[in-house]
């Protein structure tokens, strides 16, 4: 996998996350809506960072879709938080792929964003994953 592919996948994920937060956030109660707004701004910053890095590497950043499926029909507050948890968990997995890159700057970005997405997922879920970003838990001794 080339650096551009893992970065492009993370960028595509950020586009989707920004859209998802835009749909879900306003449906949350006030304090959590504020938290969602802050998270959306963090995702915008991450998107911009990824775009700059891809451009610097000579790539063409993937653009956002015009829309994404966000099923909020009759969703409870708990379901809305679960959607945001899922968004952050999946992004964390995408950034775990960026961590595999040999380029130090890309890897640093992946590591930082793994922590950021894992913390936000924990805040929405109310509990922490033991191995965030890993689709399968590592072998135990």
């Amino acid at each position, binding site marked *: 996998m080339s650096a551009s592919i893992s970065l492009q996948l993370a960028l595509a994920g950020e586009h989707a996350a920004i859209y998802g937060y835009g749909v879900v956030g306003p449906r949350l109660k006030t304090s959590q809506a504020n938290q969602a707004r802050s998270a959306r701004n963090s995702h915008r910053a991450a998107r911009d960072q990824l775009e700059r890095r891809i451009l610097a590497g000579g790539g063409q950043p993937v653009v956002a*879709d015009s829309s994404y499926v966000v099923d909020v029909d009759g969703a409870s507050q708990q379901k809305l938080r679960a959607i945001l948890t899922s968004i952050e968990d999946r992004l964390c997995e995408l950034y775990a792929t960026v961590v595999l890159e040999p380029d130090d700057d890309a890897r640093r970005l992946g590591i930082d964003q793994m922590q950021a997405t894992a913390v936000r997922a924990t805040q929405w879920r109310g509990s922490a994953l033991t191995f965030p970003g890993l689709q399968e838990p590592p072998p135990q001794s």
Partner: protein
Amino acid sequence: MTADVGRRTLLTGFGAGMTGYSLLAVSATSVSLLTLAGCDTTNGIAVAALDQVALDQVLTGELTLEAASAKVAGATARAGAAAHRAHADALIAAGASSSATASAAPSAARDAVPSTAAELAAAQRAQAARAARLALGATPRIARLLSSIGASNASLAALAVANR
């Protein structure tokens, strides 16, 4: 309401809300192939020297945190103790030296051992920073494990602060 449907599929796992499969399936396959092709295993094959240092240092931290979590009251600390134990087991499985186990006690004595939830959260944040720093110099497979453990520690610290 249901927001309108996107043309392209990007992200899986958004089952509760956002859908998409094809690109992510490619991604998951590529990750597996890269992991298999680019990284050593610990089954009798030497772990790179930098990996060994990183694994040992993070293991020492996890063992210290596991012991400290067990002494702090509350469900969050108990969950943290189980997580730190799982981190330690994964690090040992990845090749961390058992000598790190022996060095955990002196390390704990040298460093301020957390005894309150706030101190534990601070120690978990420090462990997250340590794991992130060491992941930068590690081989890809170890870097991903250390990054995940770092992210978990950052999450545990955030949870402890939220539950105070």
